C-alpha cells in the first residue's frame, strides 16, 4: 500500500493517531497510550479498480482500463482498507477488573481500490 504524502491524490493510507490522554481515556485504558487508527483516502479511477496499491500488475491496470473504456455503465471504485490488524487493549471495565483483549481489524495497514 501507499502512504499519503503532501502531493498525493491517488488512493493512499493516511495516518491518524488517537491519543487516549488527549480524549481523556487514559484513566480506564491502561495500555496502549493511543490508537493508530489510520484511514484510506484518495482517488480511485476506474482503471485502478482491484489494485491494492502500487504493487499490482501493470497488465491488470491495462485490462481494467480497456474494460472501463468499454463499459456501458461506470461502476464506482472506492479507496478502502485492504490490510488491517488487531488492536490490543488492556483496560479497566466497569467493575475495575482488568481486561486484556485483541479487537480484530481495527488498525488500517494498507489501502487499495475496490
Amino acid at each position, binding site marked *: 500500500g501507499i502512504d499519503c504524502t503532501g502531493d498525493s491524490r491517488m488512493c493512499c493510507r493516511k495516518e*491518524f493517531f*488517537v491519543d487516549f490522554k488527549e*480524549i481523556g*481515556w487514559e*484513566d*480506564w485504558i491502561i495500555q496502549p497510550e493511543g*490508537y493508530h*487508527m489510520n*484511514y*484510506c*483516502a*484518495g482517488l*480511485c479511477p476506474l482503471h485502478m479498480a482491484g489494485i491494492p496499491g502500487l504493487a499490482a500488475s501493470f497488465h491488470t491496470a491495462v485490462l481494467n482500463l480497456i474494460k472501463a473504456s468499454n463499459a456501458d455503465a461506470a461502476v*464506482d471504485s*472506492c*479507496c*478502502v482498507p485492504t490490510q488491517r490488524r488487531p*488492536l490490543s*487493549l488492556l*483496560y*479497566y*471495565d*466497569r*467493575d*475495575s*477488573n*482488568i*481486561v*486484556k*483483549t*485483541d*479487537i*480484530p481489524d*481495527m488498525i488500517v495497514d494498507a489501502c487499495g481500490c475496490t
Partner: protein
Amino acid sequence: AVSGGTGCPACSLAALAPGARRDALLALAKRNILSELRLQERPSVSRPPSRGALLAALSRASTRRPLPDTPPALSSRTQRYQVLSFAESGSSSPGRIRLHFRFTQELGRSIEVLQASLYLFWASPSPGTHQVTVKVLQPDLSGPNITMVSKTWLEMQRAGWASLDVGEAVQSLFSNGRQRLTVELETAEDLGSPLLAGQSDSHWPFVAAQARDRAPHRVQRR
C-alpha cells in the same frame, strides 16, 4: 455521518474541513472501541486496584499453562479476553472469610470461559501443612439463599501463592446471567487469617480468567 451519501465511505470525510474531519475521526474511533468492547459508554473507574496488586496478578497470570491451540478458522475472527478480577472482602469471622468477585454484564452470556483460576496468597504464621476449605458459592437470583457450586481443599505447606481451578464455576456464573462469584475460605480458627490479614496489596486474592466469544453457528454443506 462519515459514510453518508452515495459515494465511497471516505468521500464525505475528504469533503470535510480538517478540524471537522479530525472530530469525525475521533468520534468514529471512540464509537468503534466502545462498540467492540460492548460498552454503552466509557467505564468510570472508581476503585482501581493498587499498582502492586496489578503487577503481582499480571505476573502470576502470565505464568499459567498455555491454552490448547484454537483452529485457525476460529482464531482469526474470534475475539479473546483475559480478565483479572480482584476480590472484595465480604463478611468474615475467625477462621472463615468470604470474598466476592464481580464480573461485568458485557462479558456475560456471549462468551465462553476457557480457563479460570483463583489465586490466593498464604502467609502462614506457623510451619507445617495447613488445610484450607474453599467453597464456591452463588447467590440465588430469586431470594437470599446461596447455592454451593463446589467445595475443594487446598493444602498449604509454605508461604506463597496457590491457585485453584474455578473455570466451571465462572462459566456457570456467566451462563446464568449472574455477575457475582462468592468464595468462602475456611481455616483452623487458631491460625487467624493468613489469607488476608496483614497482607500487602500485592498479595490480594484475584481470579484470572481466559474467555472468547462464542463461536458462531456453522453451516456444513454435504
